[in-house]
Protein backbone atom coordinates (compact mmCIF):
# COMPACT_ATOMS: atom_id res chain seq x y z
CA UNK A 1 0.00 0.00 0.00
CA UNK A 2 2.78 2.35 0.94
CA UNK A 3 4.48 1.69 -2.35
CA UNK A 4 1.44 2.91 -4.31
CA UNK A 5 1.39 6.05 -2.22
CA UNK A 6 5.04 6.66 -3.00
CA UNK A 7 4.62 5.99 -6.71
CA UNK A 8 1.52 8.15 -6.94
CA UNK A 9 2.81 11.20 -5.14
CA UNK A 10 6.20 10.64 -6.67
CA UNK A 11 4.89 11.08 -10.17
CA UNK A 12 2.38 13.84 -9.39
CA UNK A 13 4.55 16.12 -7.29
CA UNK A 14 8.16 15.05 -7.08
CA UNK A 15 8.89 13.80 -10.55
CA UNK A 16 6.12 15.68 -12.27
CA UNK A 17 5.82 14.62 -15.88
CA UNK A 18 6.22 18.10 -17.27
CA UNK A 19 8.04 20.10 -14.65
CA UNK A 20 10.60 17.51 -13.75
CA UNK A 21 10.80 14.91 -16.48
CA UNK A 22 10.18 17.23 -19.43
CA UNK A 23 7.63 14.92 -20.96
CA UNK A 24 4.53 16.24 -22.70
CA UNK A 25 5.80 19.71 -23.45
CA UNK A 26 4.35 20.14 -26.94
CA UNK A 27 0.71 20.04 -25.84
CA UNK A 28 1.62 21.74 -22.59
CA UNK A 29 2.47 25.04 -24.19
CA UNK A 30 -0.05 24.75 -26.97
CA UNK A 31 -3.07 24.13 -24.79
CA UNK A 32 -2.29 25.97 -21.58
CA UNK A 33 -3.55 29.38 -22.60
CA UNK A 34 -6.96 29.05 -21.07
CA UNK A 35 -8.46 26.95 -18.35
CA UNK A 36 -11.19 25.04 -20.23
CA UNK A 37 -9.14 23.62 -23.09
CA UNK A 38 -6.43 22.82 -20.55
CA UNK A 39 -8.88 20.83 -18.49
CA UNK A 40 -10.17 18.94 -21.54
CA UNK A 41 -6.66 18.07 -22.63
CA UNK A 42 -5.73 17.07 -19.09
CA UNK A 43 -8.64 14.68 -18.78
CA UNK A 44 -7.98 13.20 -22.21
CA UNK A 45 -4.30 12.69 -21.43
CA UNK A 46 -5.01 11.14 -18.02
CA UNK A 47 -7.40 8.69 -19.60
CA UNK A 48 -5.07 7.74 -22.43
CA UNK A 49 -2.04 7.57 -20.17
CA UNK A 50 -3.72 5.23 -17.71
CA UNK A 51 -5.11 2.93 -20.39
CA UNK A 52 -1.94 3.05 -22.47
CA UNK A 53 0.14 2.13 -19.42
CA UNK A 54 -2.02 -0.93 -18.88
CA UNK A 55 -2.15 -1.97 -22.52
CA UNK A 56 1.57 -1.53 -23.15
CA UNK A 57 2.37 -3.40 -19.94
CA UNK A 58 0.25 -6.32 -21.10
CA UNK A 59 1.90 -6.18 -24.50
CA UNK A 60 5.36 -6.21 -22.93
CA UNK A 61 4.70 -8.88 -20.31
CA UNK A 62 2.84 -11.37 -22.46
CA UNK A 63 4.09 -10.75 -25.99
CA UNK A 64 7.58 -9.32 -25.84
CA UNK A 65 9.24 -10.57 -22.69
CA UNK A 66 8.50 -14.30 -23.06
CA UNK A 67 10.01 -14.30 -26.54
CA UNK A 68 13.05 -12.17 -25.78
CA UNK A 69 11.73 -9.40 -28.00
CA UNK A 70 12.20 -6.52 -25.55
CA UNK A 71 14.20 -4.59 -28.12
CA UNK A 72 11.03 -4.17 -30.15
CA UNK A 73 9.30 -2.36 -27.30
CA UNK A 74 9.59 1.14 -28.76
CA UNK A 75 7.97 0.10 -32.03
CA UNK A 76 5.37 -2.08 -30.32
CA UNK A 77 4.44 0.54 -27.74
CA UNK A 78 4.01 3.41 -30.16
CA UNK A 79 1.90 1.26 -32.47
CA UNK A 80 -0.20 0.08 -29.52
CA UNK A 81 -0.69 3.66 -28.35
CA UNK A 82 -1.52 4.94 -31.84
CA UNK A 83 -4.00 2.11 -32.41
CA UNK A 84 -5.55 2.57 -29.00
CA UNK A 85 -6.05 6.29 -29.49
CA UNK A 86 -7.56 5.67 -32.91
CA UNK A 87 -9.88 3.08 -31.39
CA UNK A 88 -10.95 5.37 -28.56
CA UNK A 89 -11.61 8.13 -31.06
CA UNK A 90 -13.90 5.81 -33.05
CA UNK A 91 -15.76 4.72 -29.93
CA UNK A 92 -16.28 8.28 -28.78
CA UNK A 93 -17.43 9.34 -32.23
CA UNK A 94 -20.09 6.62 -32.20
CA UNK A 95 -21.25 6.87 -28.61
CA UNK A 96 -20.94 10.51 -27.69
CA UNK A 97 -20.54 13.16 -30.42
CA UNK A 98 -20.67 16.02 -27.90
CA UNK A 99 -17.69 14.49 -26.08
CA UNK A 100 -15.91 14.17 -29.37
CA UNK A 101 -16.49 17.84 -30.15
CA UNK A 102 -15.33 18.76 -26.69
CA UNK A 103 -12.08 16.80 -26.98
CA UNK A 104 -11.71 17.84 -30.59
CA UNK A 105 -8.24 17.58 -31.99
CA UNK A 106 -6.67 16.80 -28.66
CA UNK A 107 -7.16 13.08 -28.82
CA UNK A 108 -5.11 12.36 -31.95
CA UNK A 109 -2.50 14.83 -30.73
CA UNK A 110 -1.99 12.69 -27.67
CA UNK A 111 -0.53 9.92 -29.79
CA UNK A 112 2.63 11.88 -30.34
CA UNK A 113 2.68 13.04 -26.77
CA UNK A 114 6.06 12.04 -25.39
CA UNK A 115 4.44 11.74 -21.99
CA UNK A 116 2.33 8.74 -22.93
CA UNK A 117 5.17 6.81 -24.54
CA UNK A 118 7.50 8.02 -21.81
CA UNK A 119 5.30 6.69 -19.01
CA UNK A 120 4.98 3.33 -20.76
CA UNK A 121 8.74 3.04 -21.11
CA UNK A 122 9.32 4.04 -17.49
CA UNK A 123 6.78 1.46 -16.30
CA UNK A 124 8.80 -1.24 -17.98
CA UNK A 125 12.16 0.14 -16.90
CA UNK A 126 11.14 0.32 -13.25
CA UNK A 127 9.69 -3.18 -13.39
CA UNK A 128 6.27 -2.22 -12.09
CA UNK A 129 3.59 -4.86 -11.84
CA UNK A 130 0.14 -4.24 -13.31
CA UNK A 131 -1.29 -2.34 -10.36
CA UNK A 132 1.81 -0.21 -9.93
CA UNK A 133 1.74 0.52 -13.65
CA UNK A 134 -1.85 1.69 -13.44
CA UNK A 135 -1.13 3.89 -10.45
CA UNK A 136 1.89 5.36 -12.20
CA UNK A 137 -0.03 6.01 -15.42
CA UNK A 138 -2.95 7.57 -13.64
CA UNK A 139 -0.71 9.66 -11.42
CA UNK A 140 1.30 10.76 -14.42
CA UNK A 141 -1.85 12.00 -16.10
CA UNK A 142 -2.98 13.82 -12.98
CA UNK A 143 0.40 15.46 -12.55
CA UNK A 144 0.33 16.52 -16.17
CA UNK A 145 -3.17 17.95 -15.76
CA UNK A 146 -2.22 19.78 -12.60
CA UNK A 147 0.80 21.45 -14.19
CA UNK A 148 -1.32 22.28 -17.23
CA UNK A 149 -4.05 23.90 -15.16
CA UNK A 150 -1.61 25.89 -13.05
CA UNK A 151 0.00 27.16 -16.22
CA UNK A 152 -3.36 28.01 -17.75
CA UNK A 153 -4.38 30.07 -14.74
CA UNK A 154 -1.12 32.00 -14.86
CA UNK A 155 -1.37 32.61 -18.58
CA UNK A 156 -4.94 33.83 -18.35
CA UNK A 157 -3.66 36.55 -16.05
CA UNK A 158 -0.78 37.18 -18.41
CA UNK A 159 -3.21 38.54 -20.99
CA UNK A 160 -3.48 41.63 -18.86
CA UNK A 161 0.24 42.12 -18.32
CA UNK A 162 2.63 44.09 -20.45
CA UNK A 163 4.95 41.61 -22.06
CA UNK A 164 7.78 42.82 -24.33
CA UNK A 165 7.06 42.02 -27.97
CA UNK A 166 9.91 39.59 -28.42
CA UNK A 167 8.98 37.64 -25.31
CA UNK A 168 5.36 37.08 -26.21
CA UNK A 169 4.14 33.56 -26.69
CA UNK A 170 6.50 30.66 -26.08
CA UNK A 171 9.30 32.77 -24.67
CA UNK A 172 7.44 34.10 -21.65
CA UNK A 173 5.63 30.79 -21.41
CA UNK A 174 8.88 28.98 -20.79
CA UNK A 175 10.14 31.54 -18.32
CA UNK A 176 6.92 31.08 -16.34
CA UNK A 177 7.24 27.32 -16.54
CA UNK A 178 10.73 27.63 -15.10
CA UNK A 179 9.32 29.35 -12.04
CA UNK A 180 6.65 26.73 -11.68
CA UNK A 181 9.35 24.05 -11.94
CA UNK A 182 11.40 25.87 -9.32
CA UNK A 183 8.44 25.86 -6.97
CA UNK A 184 7.86 22.16 -7.52
CA UNK A 185 11.53 21.54 -6.90
CA UNK A 186 10.73 22.07 -3.28
CA UNK A 187 9.09 18.64 -3.28
CA UNK A 188 12.37 16.88 -3.99
CA UNK A 189 13.56 14.51 -1.34
CA UNK A 190 10.05 14.17 0.04
CA UNK A 191 10.32 10.42 0.43
CA UNK A 192 13.96 10.22 1.38
CA UNK A 193 14.93 8.77 4.74
Amino acid at each position, binding site marked *: MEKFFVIFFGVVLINNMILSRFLGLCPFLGVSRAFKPALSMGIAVTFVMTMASIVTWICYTFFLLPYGLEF*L*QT*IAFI*LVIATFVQFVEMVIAKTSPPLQTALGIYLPLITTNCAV*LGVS*LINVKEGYNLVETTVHGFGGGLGFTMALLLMACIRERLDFAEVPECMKGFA*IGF*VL*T*SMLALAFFGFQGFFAR
Partner: protein
Amino acid sequence: MAVLQHLQEDFFKGIWRENPTFRIVLGLCPSLAISTSVVNGIGMGLAATFVLLGSNLLVSLIRNVTPSKIRLPVFIIIISSFVTIADLLIEAYTPDLHKALGIFIPLIVVNCIILARAEAFASRQPVLYSIADALGMGAGFTLALVIISGIREAIGNGTILGVPIFGPHYEPAITLILAPGAFLTLGLLIGLVNYISRKR
Protein backbone atom coordinates in the same frame (compact mmCIF):
# COMPACT_ATOMS: atom_id res chain seq x y z
CA MET B 1 21.15 25.08 -61.34
CA ALA B 2 17.71 25.45 -59.89
CA VAL B 3 18.11 22.06 -58.24
CA LEU B 4 21.26 23.12 -56.45
CA GLN B 5 19.64 26.32 -55.27
CA HIS B 6 16.60 24.39 -54.12
CA LEU B 7 18.83 22.00 -52.20
CA GLN B 8 20.72 24.83 -50.56
CA GLU B 9 17.49 26.47 -49.52
CA ASP B 10 16.07 23.25 -48.14
CA PHE B 11 19.19 22.73 -46.09
CA PHE B 12 19.77 26.20 -44.71
CA LYS B 13 16.21 26.93 -43.74
CA GLY B 14 16.48 24.32 -41.02
CA ILE B 15 19.34 26.17 -39.43
CA TRP B 16 17.90 29.60 -38.89
CA ARG B 17 14.71 30.69 -40.58
CA GLU B 18 12.80 27.55 -39.69
CA ASN B 19 14.95 26.30 -36.85
CA PRO B 20 12.91 23.51 -35.29
CA THR B 21 13.68 24.44 -31.71
CA PHE B 22 13.73 28.21 -31.68
CA ARG B 23 11.26 29.10 -34.39
CA ILE B 24 8.88 26.23 -35.00
CA VAL B 25 9.25 25.19 -31.32
CA LEU B 26 9.13 21.44 -31.80
CA GLY B 27 11.07 18.59 -30.26
CA LEU B 28 11.06 20.26 -26.87
CA CYS B 29 11.25 17.24 -24.60
CA PRO B 30 14.83 16.28 -25.47
CA SER B 31 15.89 19.90 -25.95
CA LEU B 32 15.34 20.52 -22.28
CA ALA B 33 16.01 17.18 -20.73
CA ILE B 34 19.41 16.28 -22.08
CA SER B 35 20.89 19.70 -22.71
CA THR B 36 22.82 19.60 -19.45
CA SER B 37 26.15 19.27 -21.16
CA VAL B 38 27.46 20.01 -24.61
CA VAL B 39 28.55 16.43 -25.11
CA ASN B 40 25.01 15.18 -24.52
CA GLY B 41 23.61 17.90 -26.74
CA ILE B 42 25.83 16.88 -29.64
CA GLY B 43 25.07 13.21 -29.03
CA MET B 44 21.34 13.68 -29.07
CA GLY B 45 21.52 16.02 -32.03
CA LEU B 46 23.44 13.49 -34.08
CA ALA B 47 21.15 10.62 -33.05
CA ALA B 48 18.08 12.62 -34.00
CA THR B 49 19.67 13.68 -37.29
CA PHE B 50 20.41 10.04 -38.07
CA VAL B 51 16.79 9.09 -37.49
CA LEU B 52 15.52 12.14 -39.35
CA LEU B 53 17.71 11.31 -42.32
CA GLY B 54 16.59 7.70 -42.43
CA SER B 55 12.99 8.62 -41.95
CA ASN B 56 12.88 11.39 -44.56
CA LEU B 57 14.75 9.20 -47.02
CA LEU B 58 12.44 6.23 -46.70
CA VAL B 59 9.22 8.19 -46.45
CA SER B 60 10.17 10.05 -49.59
CA LEU B 61 11.19 6.85 -51.39
CA ILE B 62 7.87 5.14 -50.82
CA ARG B 63 5.71 8.25 -50.96
CA ASN B 64 4.10 7.28 -54.22
CA VAL B 65 3.19 3.78 -53.17
CA THR B 66 1.96 4.54 -49.67
CA PRO B 67 -1.82 4.76 -49.51
CA SER B 68 -2.80 8.04 -47.93
CA LYS B 69 -5.05 6.44 -45.34
CA ILE B 70 -2.30 4.50 -43.66
CA ARG B 71 0.47 6.99 -44.04
CA LEU B 72 0.58 7.95 -40.37
CA PRO B 73 1.04 4.37 -39.12
CA VAL B 74 3.59 3.79 -41.87
CA PHE B 75 5.57 6.88 -40.80
CA ILE B 76 5.44 5.64 -37.25
CA ILE B 77 6.73 2.21 -38.19
CA ILE B 78 9.59 3.70 -40.19
CA ILE B 79 10.54 6.22 -37.52
CA SER B 80 10.33 3.80 -34.61
CA SER B 81 12.39 1.23 -36.51
CA PHE B 82 15.15 3.74 -37.15
CA VAL B 83 15.03 4.85 -33.55
CA THR B 84 15.40 1.29 -32.31
CA ILE B 85 18.32 0.73 -34.69
CA ALA B 86 19.94 3.97 -33.49
CA ASP B 87 19.36 2.91 -29.89
CA LEU B 88 21.03 -0.46 -30.43
CA LEU B 89 23.98 1.06 -32.28
CA ILE B 90 24.50 3.71 -29.60
CA GLU B 91 24.29 1.14 -26.82
CA ALA B 92 26.80 -1.08 -28.57
CA TYR B 93 29.37 1.47 -29.71
CA THR B 94 29.03 4.41 -27.32
CA PRO B 95 27.62 3.00 -24.05
CA ASP B 96 28.42 6.14 -22.04
CA LEU B 97 26.35 8.30 -24.37
CA HIS B 98 23.62 5.69 -24.15
CA LYS B 99 23.57 5.95 -20.37
CA ALA B 100 23.50 9.75 -20.54
CA LEU B 101 20.67 9.98 -23.04
CA GLY B 102 18.62 7.28 -21.33
CA ILE B 103 14.98 7.02 -22.30
CA PHE B 104 15.30 10.03 -24.57
CA ILE B 105 16.65 7.85 -27.33
CA PRO B 106 13.43 5.88 -27.69
CA LEU B 107 11.59 9.14 -27.21
CA ILE B 108 13.05 10.38 -30.49
CA VAL B 109 10.12 8.43 -31.91
CA VAL B 110 7.71 11.05 -30.65
CA ASN B 111 10.07 13.88 -31.35
CA CYS B 112 7.57 16.04 -33.15
CA ILE B 113 10.26 17.29 -35.50
CA ILE B 114 10.62 13.94 -37.21
CA LEU B 115 6.95 13.20 -37.67
CA ALA B 116 6.33 16.80 -38.73
CA ARG B 117 9.02 16.70 -41.41
CA ALA B 118 7.78 13.35 -42.66
CA GLU B 119 4.24 14.63 -42.97
CA ALA B 120 4.95 18.17 -44.15
CA PHE B 121 7.89 17.59 -46.43
CA ALA B 122 9.25 14.14 -47.13
CA SER B 123 5.93 12.63 -48.10
CA ARG B 124 5.51 15.21 -50.82
CA GLN B 125 8.98 15.95 -52.03
CA PRO B 126 11.54 13.98 -54.01
CA VAL B 127 14.28 12.08 -52.25
CA LEU B 128 17.15 14.52 -52.83
CA TYR B 129 15.28 17.49 -51.37
CA SER B 130 14.07 15.35 -48.48
CA ILE B 131 17.64 14.47 -47.64
CA ALA B 132 18.61 18.15 -47.70
CA ASP B 133 15.66 19.00 -45.50
CA ALA B 134 16.57 16.26 -43.02
CA LEU B 135 20.19 17.38 -42.84
CA GLY B 136 19.20 21.01 -42.43
CA MET B 137 16.62 20.36 -39.74
CA GLY B 138 18.97 17.97 -38.00
CA ALA B 139 21.76 20.52 -38.12
CA GLY B 140 19.46 23.23 -36.82
CA PHE B 141 18.27 21.00 -34.01
CA THR B 142 21.82 20.02 -33.08
CA LEU B 143 22.89 23.66 -33.20
CA ALA B 144 20.03 24.63 -30.89
CA LEU B 145 20.93 21.81 -28.50
CA VAL B 146 24.58 22.87 -28.47
CA ILE B 147 23.67 26.48 -27.72
CA ILE B 148 21.26 25.55 -24.94
CA SER B 149 23.58 23.02 -23.37
CA GLY B 150 26.54 25.35 -23.82
CA ILE B 151 24.84 27.98 -21.72
CA ARG B 152 23.55 25.51 -19.16
CA GLU B 153 26.83 23.69 -18.79
CA ALA B 154 28.91 26.89 -18.65
CA ILE B 155 26.86 28.72 -16.07
CA GLY B 156 25.48 25.72 -14.24
CA ASN B 157 28.65 23.67 -14.03
CA GLY B 158 31.48 26.01 -14.93
CA THR B 159 32.64 23.80 -17.77
CA ILE B 160 32.28 23.35 -21.51
CA LEU B 161 32.78 19.85 -22.84
CA GLY B 162 34.02 18.99 -19.38
CA VAL B 163 36.73 21.61 -19.43
CA PRO B 164 36.46 24.16 -16.61
CA ILE B 165 36.31 27.63 -18.05
CA PHE B 166 35.87 29.91 -15.11
CA GLY B 167 38.62 28.79 -12.82
CA PRO B 168 38.41 26.96 -9.48
CA HIS B 169 36.61 29.64 -7.52
CA TYR B 170 33.53 29.69 -9.68
CA GLU B 171 30.38 28.76 -7.79
CA PRO B 172 28.16 27.14 -10.41
CA ALA B 173 24.52 28.18 -10.55
CA ILE B 174 23.27 24.63 -10.25
CA THR B 175 19.70 25.65 -10.99
CA LEU B 176 20.63 25.95 -14.61
CA ILE B 177 21.48 22.29 -14.82
CA LEU B 178 18.16 21.39 -13.29
CA ALA B 179 14.63 21.59 -14.65
CA PRO B 180 13.88 25.25 -13.87
CA GLY B 181 17.09 26.35 -15.52
CA ALA B 182 16.23 24.44 -18.65
CA PHE B 183 12.93 26.21 -19.11
CA LEU B 184 14.46 29.57 -18.29
CA THR B 185 17.30 29.19 -20.79
CA LEU B 186 14.98 28.11 -23.57
CA GLY B 187 12.49 30.89 -22.86
CA LEU B 188 15.12 33.59 -22.91
CA LEU B 189 16.76 32.16 -26.01
CA ILE B 190 13.44 32.10 -27.89
CA GLY B 191 12.90 35.69 -26.82
CA LEU B 192 16.36 36.57 -28.09
CA VAL B 193 15.77 34.86 -31.42
CA ASN B 194 12.46 36.69 -31.79
CA TYR B 195 14.17 39.97 -31.02
CA ILE B 196 16.90 39.37 -33.61
CA SER B 197 14.36 38.32 -36.24
CA ARG B 198 12.30 41.41 -35.74
CA LYS B 199 15.26 43.70 -36.06
CA ARG B 200 16.17 42.33 -39.48
